[in-house]
């Protein structure tokens, strides 16, 4: 039995039990703790132990104990991140916030929800929906990722085009510093300019500055209706111009997703409608709002593209809408058939740079002789770039690695950024100094030091160790 628990983990367990923690809140078993060592990047590194606090005082207890023992803390939501933000080190404690999942208040008069970090985003959307309210951010993982994870990664989703990303909805936070002291940021006021905006600083900080224990989220009235259309174009440039034209003609879609020709070919046979052979790029456009406005904008969309689009389908009801979205939903499993592995990056570029970047990526694909599949959020410039390869083939693996270097170079050259929604984590930290100059990085490091002088809170993320 003894060999199943590390002596230090055993000591910490005893202290926490004295402080009122129950057995099911402590995962110290050497076998079970491996379940807290990975995330969606498939890296794996087992922590010393994992703790599941149920309230902020327990978070404080853990942080004080870790400070006393000089231990590292790795905050964790659902562990569904795409950049390794939740990966621990062997001498670190996982602070899993999945049991802090109460929706504390839905303030209908101020249209603000107050939640604990472990609340699942989709559950919050469902709950506020009962009050006719709407929390728009919609990362693909919303059915299982937590609000806390969404805030610390500043997650976005297709609706970012119209509504923005998670950070645009965070009004305020309560958080604990690594030493166990509490800070309060923001409030329920729409206008609020008193002092530094620490809320915005913590948003997207990837769990490196403080442990967030309470979040105030802005809500909107739920849109009356939404309408989805699918448009096919003969080239990426034509599709990009189409996106531009929509904004120019005051069409204000909530979502504009695109699929490149690799993506189209991967899902073509599974679609319930026929796509023209010449279709090179597909746009999925969703317009939401009051009934009359949606109808009007949809009409405009049809008028605008009746000649230029190779195909234009309007979903007439919920089941047709679902059919159009199938193209996007089937995509991830479908492109897995192209090659056994993929390297997936989530670069973002200015809207106008999309066609140029896509064409440069196509050239790169030829250069490294590996398929590069692009899809993502045409309306906000966030492109999911997937290099398809067999990692077990050393030559392909090497070409893939080179490809990633080039992808980032192409992106930064076009005025883009390394990550639109996944964060830097530990998977992109090696490229961080390609995007930012030394003085800027030194300033960021100084901020980190002000919050966490001993580098004990989620070390090794954002900045290279």
């Amino acid at each position, binding site marked *: 039995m003894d060999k*199943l628990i590390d002596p230090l983990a055993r000591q910490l367990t005893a202290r926490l039990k004295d402080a009122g923690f129950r057995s*099911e809140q402590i*995962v110290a*078993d050497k*076998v*079970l703790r*491996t*379940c*807290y060592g*990975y*995330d*969606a990047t*498939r890296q794996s590194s087992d922590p010393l132990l*994992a703790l*599941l606090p149920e309230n902020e005082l327990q978070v404080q207890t853990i942080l004080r104990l870790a400070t006393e023992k000089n231990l590292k803390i790795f905050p964790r939501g*659902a*562990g*569904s991140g795409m950049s390794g933000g939740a990966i621990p080190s062997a001498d670190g404690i996982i602070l*899993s916030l*999945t*049991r802090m*999942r109460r929706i504390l208040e839905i303030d209908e008069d101020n249209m603000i929800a107050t939640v604990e970090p*472990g609340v*699942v985003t*989709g559950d919050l959307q469902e709950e506020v929906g009962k009050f006719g309210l709407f929390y728009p951010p919609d990362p693909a*993982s919303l*059915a*299982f*990722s937590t609000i806390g994870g969404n805030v610390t990664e500043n997650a976005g989703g297709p609706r970012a085009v119209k509504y923005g990303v998670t950070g645009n909805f965070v009004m305020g936070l309560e958080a604990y510093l690594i030493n166990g002291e509490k800070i309060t940021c923001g409030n329920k006021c729409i206008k609020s300019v008193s002092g530094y905006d620490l809320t915005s600083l913590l948003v997207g900080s990837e769990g490196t500055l403080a442990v967030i224990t309470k979040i105030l989220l802005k809500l909107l009235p739920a849109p009356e209706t939404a309408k989805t259309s699918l448009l096919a174009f003969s080239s990426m440039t034509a599709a990009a111009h189409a996106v531009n034209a929509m904004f120019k003609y005051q069409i204000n879609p909530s979502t504009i997703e695109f699929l490149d020709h690799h993506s189209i070919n991967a899902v073509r046979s599974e679609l319930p409608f026929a796509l023209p052979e010449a279709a090179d790029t597909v746009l999925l456009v969703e317009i939401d709002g009051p009934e009359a406005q949606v109808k009007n904008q949809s009409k405009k969309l049809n008028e605008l593209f009746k000649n230029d689009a190779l195909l234009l389908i309007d979903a007439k009801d919920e089941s047709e809408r679902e059919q159009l979205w199938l193209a996007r939903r089937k995509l*991830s*499993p479908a492109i*897995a058939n192209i090659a056994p592995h993929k390297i997936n990056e989530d670069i973002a570029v200015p809207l106008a740079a999309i066609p140029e970047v896509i064409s440069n990526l196509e050239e790169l694909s030829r250069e490294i002789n590996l398929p590069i599949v692009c899809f993502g959020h045409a309306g906000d410039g966030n492109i999911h770039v997937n290099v398809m390869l067999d990692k077990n083939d050393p030559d392909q693996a090497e070409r893939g690695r080179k490809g990633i270097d080039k992808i980032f170079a192409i992106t930064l050259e076009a005025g883009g950024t390394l990550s639109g929604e996944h964060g830097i984590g530990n998977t992109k930290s090696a490229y961080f100094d390609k995007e930012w100059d030394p003085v800027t990085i030194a300033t960021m490091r100084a901020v980190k030091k002000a919050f966490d002088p001993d580098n004990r809170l989620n070390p090794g993320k954002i900045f290279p160790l």
Partner: protein
Amino acid sequence: MTMTPFEIEEELKKCVKCGACMAVCPIYRQTGREDMVARGKLNLIELIKGSKELPAGWLEAVDYCLLCCSCEENCSKGVKITEIIAAARVQQTEIMGLNPIKKGVFALLKNRIISISRFVKLGSFGQWLLWQRLPRHSGLVRRLPLPGIDEKTVIPALPKRNLDDLLRKQRAAAGLQPILFFPGCATRYLHPQMGLDLIFVLEKLGFNAIVPPEFKCCGMVTWGAGDESTSAKLKQANLKVLHENAGIKQLVTGCASCGHALKDYDGRPQNCEILDISEFLFQHREKLEDLLGKRKLRQKITYHDPCHLRKGQGVSKEPRWLLNLIAGENFIEMRHPERCCGAGGTFGITHKELSRKILKEKTLAADATGAGIVASGCPGCILQLTEGAVVAESDWQAEHPITLLANLLHQTEPEER
């Protein structure tokens, strides 16, 4: 039935650890523990594959699964998670043996020492010493304090006559088309009336239900518990019956788990179609609509998807069509009808507290509809839902759709106004 180590290894490789299983796992939703969700369990199974020593944590994680298939339905990689868990349980029983209570129960299923029908009959006399009827539901609750059983635990009332006894006295009308009916243990020994209801509806549609007394337990519960040899024996016995009756083109069952198990039998007669009763009725929808005429259920009704029907067999439209037919606008969907009720074979007995927490969400969702009846095509779910209604003091009763349909068909059709 059980995957080979090689197949398991290949399946495990498919998991990309995306975490999508966390969205739907009833146990993870309650515990927030990552070792208790599919991603974690697969990680653990991979970690100690081939090992002869099973650590306590592994055993617990493998035990904490309802086999509800929710993760599997939601898995974009199509990993056969429930089969992997079942295989892990086989590994466990091979190394550690079967839990003695399960061993005893499974011996009954195999008709060892004492037959299950005799066991139930003996119980039907003795049960009143310890248990009493529930005022508004079918089922029993304890009379006196009993160790490990609280005052709201519902067990089925054991009937004096099982389905085989009742059928011995019945004779089918002439000119009916034969169809096989697989009642399953729960219907056969615990709720024979439900079996009679199903047979009655089949008759009305022109079918004569053949219920071979040689049918054994479908093997789902023994498979889920890792008792491979019992499952294989039961399957062989049932396959033998199926082949002996190979001239009959269809088999129906009213039990979601039995249907799930039977549809997965390899080596069953090619020309015998296995159908859940709702699928069968849907095939005969025009005739059924004629038969029902203007008869409609006047009570509000809602529906709970049995996991082994919706996720195990992909059947969710047909039961809804049926409820729309018998209740019309009185049929109201609950929130998340697809979520597991927490019964999970023996899980509800072995992990009462957690099972009750899962059940509570279900009863709240049912309460919110204002329905007087919660329909579900699974005897296991019906028993669990009944317990949910007792615990929450809710005003609804859990019923099998076939019972509701049979009751309507027994009523006289209302006059045209």
